């Protein structure tokens, strides 16, 4: 009797995601990131309210610095939390 074999991997298989990450600011020609637009900045923070790294968002270094600045300003004026539990 042929038993159905379960395939077991030693290491987790790589799921090929062919979509290349890109910097959304460069692509769309956005030159200024508004710190007053909290809904937009939500895309760059995780549900704890921490900034997401560039390797996840694909933002270029130039704009990552600006995102960070904008998020910090938004936190100061109470538009975004410094710490949160479930933001999303």
């Amino acid at each position, binding site marked *: 009797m042929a038993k159905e074999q379960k395939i077991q991997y030693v290491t987790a298989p790589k799921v090929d995601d062919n979509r290349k990450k890109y910097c959304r600011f460069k692509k769309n020609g956005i030159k200024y990131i*508004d710190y007053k637009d909290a809904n937009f900045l939500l895309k760059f923070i995780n549900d704890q309210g921490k900034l997401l790294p560039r390797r996840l968002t694909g933002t270029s270094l130039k704009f990552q610095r600006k995102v960070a600045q904008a998020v910090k300003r938004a936190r100061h004026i109470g538009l975004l939390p410094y710490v949160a539990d479930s933001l999303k």
Partner: protein
Amino acid sequence: MQQYETVIILTPLLSEEVAKETITKFSTFLTENGAEIIHEDNWGLRKLAYPIEKKSTEFFHLTEFKAPGDLISKLELQYKRDERIMRFLTIALDKHALAYNEKKRSGAFNKKPKTEEAAK
């Protein structure tokens, strides 16, 4: 003359008139000291993302103005002396920010009716 943008957060304990009076106090302070006010925006009573001074709401007011650089420290000193102001943020605007604000005022972004309606 550099262009600046300043955000002030007033305590929610104020009545509508007192809040307005505070705002006009600072706008007259600006114009008297050689600043040129370009745009003002009042978001009214808003909920804060986290409590500041044990208060969870705020009056949020934004002013955009052109001023000589030495006025900023004077303005911020005035802010610190006024106990009705919980927080403030003043930033210098670069050319991209200016272009963005110009666009926003002309209503190019219809995605954000919240801020647009508050301006009217």
